[in-house]
């Protein structure tokens, strides 16, 4: 097994990975930008290497600097975390070329699933249901209109190279199509350097349910059940839980079988997640595959009892999966909420210094925080401050613990999503487990 892992990330996930490495007795190297000199993740690791200036392009997104940091610090493995270079197949390939173990799937798998139209084709061929839409990126407004008329309005435009909701646009009818296509193309070009856009049917008020899969180099692939992640804003998750409430057994079985079939079709190794939209009738459609550790992996860890980061490290070292399918038995329920530095109503960013921070603790409460009191939240990075995970013997107990933990949280100096998360946790529909992806935007939790 490799001995020293360079953690190519920052914030809470860098700290989580350092902890995972410690449990296996591995040494760790943190990397940081000039803005992150005093960040907790830097102090957690055995040693730390400065990458460069604050902008991510000159630090956490700079593959050359990361490879140099690995070489100079004697690291023999790289964990990319999520975001940044985690789904960049060229970076994964460059690590292999530099004889560093990349803790994640093969560059080929990352590449295949990163190209969203190709991912849909591959998954469709493997028998995974996909949302009706254009198989290829559309060339012009005329082609888009033809496809949209075939699949029926409303449709959604999505960037081929995209993620995180950037470049997505809902189109209600043909009159709005050309302008929306021009905007989506421009946004995709500026965000991803690739302006290709494809067209899909827009599902009304679907749920977002995803399946955690895990493969090893011997060809074994298992699933670790599902996560419900419907509570989102700007197509990014705020609340995640497992098991998904009110999901009928047949749909759940269909989802896990489809996820395994999809992962097998691409010979998937390491941790990955297949995301699906589930409609009111229980029909489900493949959305995309995330070829990395998810932000919300702790809910799966809490209900299965397995350490996913440790499993990632073992599998990357060529060991077999530390769990077999028949031993993966969900126990109780877990709910995670994401506390972001942003205005809870407008969702505008709220950078600044955290002048006071009180985090909850207690039975069934887990906190994954990237910040401490005194941390400065920079404009340069994702606004996630910390995640709060509550686990209970059932959903009711998890909810009670979550509610108490949210009440105990104090963050001063920046605005956060805490007030919104408290409203969600107390909301009758959420408490009944009746959720869908448009609730936040439709204002279900306002007032």
């Amino acid at each position, binding site marked *: 097994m490799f001995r020293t892992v360079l953690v190519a990330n920052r914030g809470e996930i860098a700290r989580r990975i350092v902890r995972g490495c410690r449990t296996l007795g591995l040494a760790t190297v943190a990397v940081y930008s000039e803005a992150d000199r005093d960040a907790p993740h830097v102090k957690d690791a055995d040693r730390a290497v400065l990458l460069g200036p604050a902008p991510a392009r000159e630090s956490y997104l700079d593959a050359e600097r990361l490879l140099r940091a690995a070489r100079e610090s004697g690291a023999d493995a790289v964990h990319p975390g999520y975001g940044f270079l985690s789904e960049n197949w060229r970076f994964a390939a460059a690590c292999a070329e530099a004889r560093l173990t990349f803790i994640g799937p093969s560059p080929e798998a990352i590449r295949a699933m990163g190209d969203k139209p190709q991912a849909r084709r591959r998954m469709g061929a493997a028998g995974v249901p996909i949302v009706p839409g254009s198989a290829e990126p559309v060339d012009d407004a005329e082609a888009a209109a033809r496809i949209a008329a075939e699949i029926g309005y409303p449709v959604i435009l999505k960037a081929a190279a995209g993620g*995180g909701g950037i470049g997505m646009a809902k189109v209600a009818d043909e009159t709005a199509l050309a302008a929306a296509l021009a905007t989506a193309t421009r946004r995709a070009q*500026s965000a991803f350097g690739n302006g290709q856009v494809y067209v899909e049917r827009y599902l009304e008020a679907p749920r977002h349910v995803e399946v955690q899969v895990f493969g090893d180099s011997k060809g074994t692939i298992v699933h670790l059940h599902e996560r419900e992640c419907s509570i989102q804003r700007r197509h990014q998750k705020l609340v995640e839980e497992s098991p998904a409430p009110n999901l009928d057994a047949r749909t759940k079985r269909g989802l896990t079988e489809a996820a395994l079939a999809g992962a097998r079709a691409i010979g998937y190794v390491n941790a990955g997640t297949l995301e699906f939209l589930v409609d009111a009738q229980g029909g489900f459609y493949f959305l995309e595959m995330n070829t990395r550790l998810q932000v919300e992996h702790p809910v799966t860890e809490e209900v299965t009892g397995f350490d996913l980061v440790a499993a990632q490290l073992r599998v990357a070292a060529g060991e077999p999966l530390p769990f077999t399918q028949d031993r993966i038995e969900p126990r109780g329920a877990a709910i995670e909420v994401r506390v972001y530095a942003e205005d809870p109503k407008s969702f*505008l960013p*709220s*950078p600044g210094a955290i002048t006071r921070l009180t985090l909850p603790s207690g039975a069934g409460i887990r906190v994954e925080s990237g910040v401490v009191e005194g941390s400065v939240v920079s*404009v340069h*990075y*994702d606004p996630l401050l910390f995640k709060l995970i509550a686990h209970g013997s059932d959903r009711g107990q998890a909810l009670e613990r979550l509610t108490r933990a949210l009440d105990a949280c104090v963050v001063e100096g920046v605005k956060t999503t805490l007030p919104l998360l408290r409203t969600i946790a107390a909301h009758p529909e959420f408490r009944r487990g009746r959720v869908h992806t448009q609730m936040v935007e439709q204002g279900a939790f306002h007032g």
Partner: protein
Amino acid sequence: MAEEIKAHITGVVFQVTAKVGDKVAAGDPVIVLESMKMEIPVEAPRAGAVKEIRVREGQTVQEGETVALLE
């Protein structure tokens, strides 16, 4: 009289979308700020001609800072 267009959040100038002399309508973006991976337009509060742009791409601006002047 010239009117100041102020940034409503702290961020890095991602794009300057208007230039001096441009006629803009109320709500048109004058610059786009990038903050915490989000692109947030700073819009003209009313119609008018852009008299001055005070920021350049890549520069950090603070909440409340004047980014442009409207004729």
